């Protein structure tokens, strides 16, 4: 499997930080100076394939890196973007969290035009999403057996069904 990010991870090219599950690279094609990529070490293509523990680690690292961008580069803002799927503009077959340091008037335009929907459309969308969230569970990759069993869900998560209004 050819994957530029996997190559960089193994060759430690552009690497700034690595741990067991996550790797931080500096993007050689930046949107602005200091544009970072937080990647899972494992080759994972889309967000839905990301195991929860790795996802949690990536989120924490991304958040810390975002803080570092504020502190080290004097950024006035940061954007965290995940392009999940070709429809969302994903160009690499390896999931990555983009962290883009921002400054006032840097000419980067990451915004969207709103497209208001009718109330009926909104209700249909709401219903569709809610049904999916209640019924379907995202496919969890099989955990290797030698890993420790997952801790039980926190009480807050168990409470969730009753809390749906």
């Amino acid at each position, binding site marked *: 499997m050819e994957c530029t990010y996997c190559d960089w991870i193994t060759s430690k090219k552009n690497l*700034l*930080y*690595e741990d067991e599950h996550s790797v931080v690279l*500096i993007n050689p094609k*930046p949107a*602005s*100076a*200091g544009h970072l990529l937080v990647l899972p070490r494992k080759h994972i293509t889309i*967000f*839905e394939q*990301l195991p*929860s523990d790795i*996802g*949690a680690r990536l*989120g924490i690292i991304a*958040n*810390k890196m*975002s803080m*570092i961008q*504020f502190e*080290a580069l004097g*950024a*006035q*803002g*940061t*954007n*965290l*973007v*995940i392009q*999940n*799927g*070709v*429809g*969302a*503009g994903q160009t690499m077959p390896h999931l990555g969290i*983009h962290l883009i340091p*921002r400054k006032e*008037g840097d*000419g*980067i*335009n*990451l915004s*969207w*035009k709103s*497209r*208001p*929907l009718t109330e009926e*459309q909104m209700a249909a*969308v*709401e219903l*569709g*999403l*809610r049904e*999916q*969230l209640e019924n*379907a569970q*995202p496919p969890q990759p099989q955990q290797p057996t030698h890993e420790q069993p997952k801790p039980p869900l926190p009480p807050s*998560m168990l*409470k969730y069904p009753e809390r749906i*209004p």
Partner: protein
Amino acid sequence: MDASQQCIFCQIAQGKINAQKVYEDADFTVVLDINPANPGHCLLLTKTHYQVMPQVPDEIVAKMMDIAKKISHAALAALKAQGTTIFVANGAPAGQRAPHFMLHVIPRVAGDGVELDIPLKDYSLAEANDARKKLQERIAQVFEFRPVMEAIPAQQPQKDITVVAEQIPPRPPVRSTMIEKKSPETQFIWQKQTGAHLEIKDLPIYDSAHVTRFFSLHKELIAVVDALVKSGPMHAIELQRIVDFRIKHLLALEYLGYIRPLGEKDPLRHGIDSTRIRNHPGRTFYAATRIGRMLLEDPVHPPILANAIKEKIILEEMGSAPEQTQAQIEKNPSQEKFDLDRLAELLGGK
């Protein structure tokens, strides 16, 4: 408490204002954006008031990623989206509009016109390296981590290309054995095609004037050079290496009739303006035509070239060569078939 009372998103998250909730748990509420970029645009809100993501504690971030994944999955399944964009803006310069941290999950379809593609910009190497160094230092402080690869690309070559060029020892003027070995017949074709009776073996092949002249002889290559001028800078030494490597391929292409000489008139007068190439700032050349580009992409085994040659041979055998070649064959009745051995020789003795 004060902030959360004033913040509309806190009130939405805590259920004090009605909104179209799709998910809720102890820490998060997910609602539909009332001004969606696309149908199904969700906002993941924390119940506690945080202004920006760096204020959010680790355990909440960890949970948030999991919920974002679920929402993304639900959007893909329920709305037949082809992808999702997960987006966070921290700070007004990054496009944050409300003083409450939120994570957007935007279902996407190719060509939906949502302008959330990450732009690529050209930043100077110095600026990029400076940012990298600062980040590295801070990461070393925070994580006590230093990457094994400390190598930051040197800035010097970018600053003064000519100095570096002078430091590289000049290559000995190797003469192309291929041209010297050229049979009288090939020499004849060459002269016939160029229309200019060049004494090629008298010109050292690495001379830039020769290279320029070579380019000036072919329409295709001129187009390539023009395309290269637009595509980005390339060091003169690099170009020379490429030209050096490819002249044999070019000769083979010419032999096959894929590239043609410019015309009967003096090519140096009517072809490309050679001074434009030679005097380009930083002594840079630029890369290739259609043919040049495909040669550039795979220098060792140019597959398109190989296919072109194969195609040509097949066409020859089937008796339906392209028109242009047909015309050439008519001009030179002795060249009805291509000599595969000579072709191999031109392509590097395979």
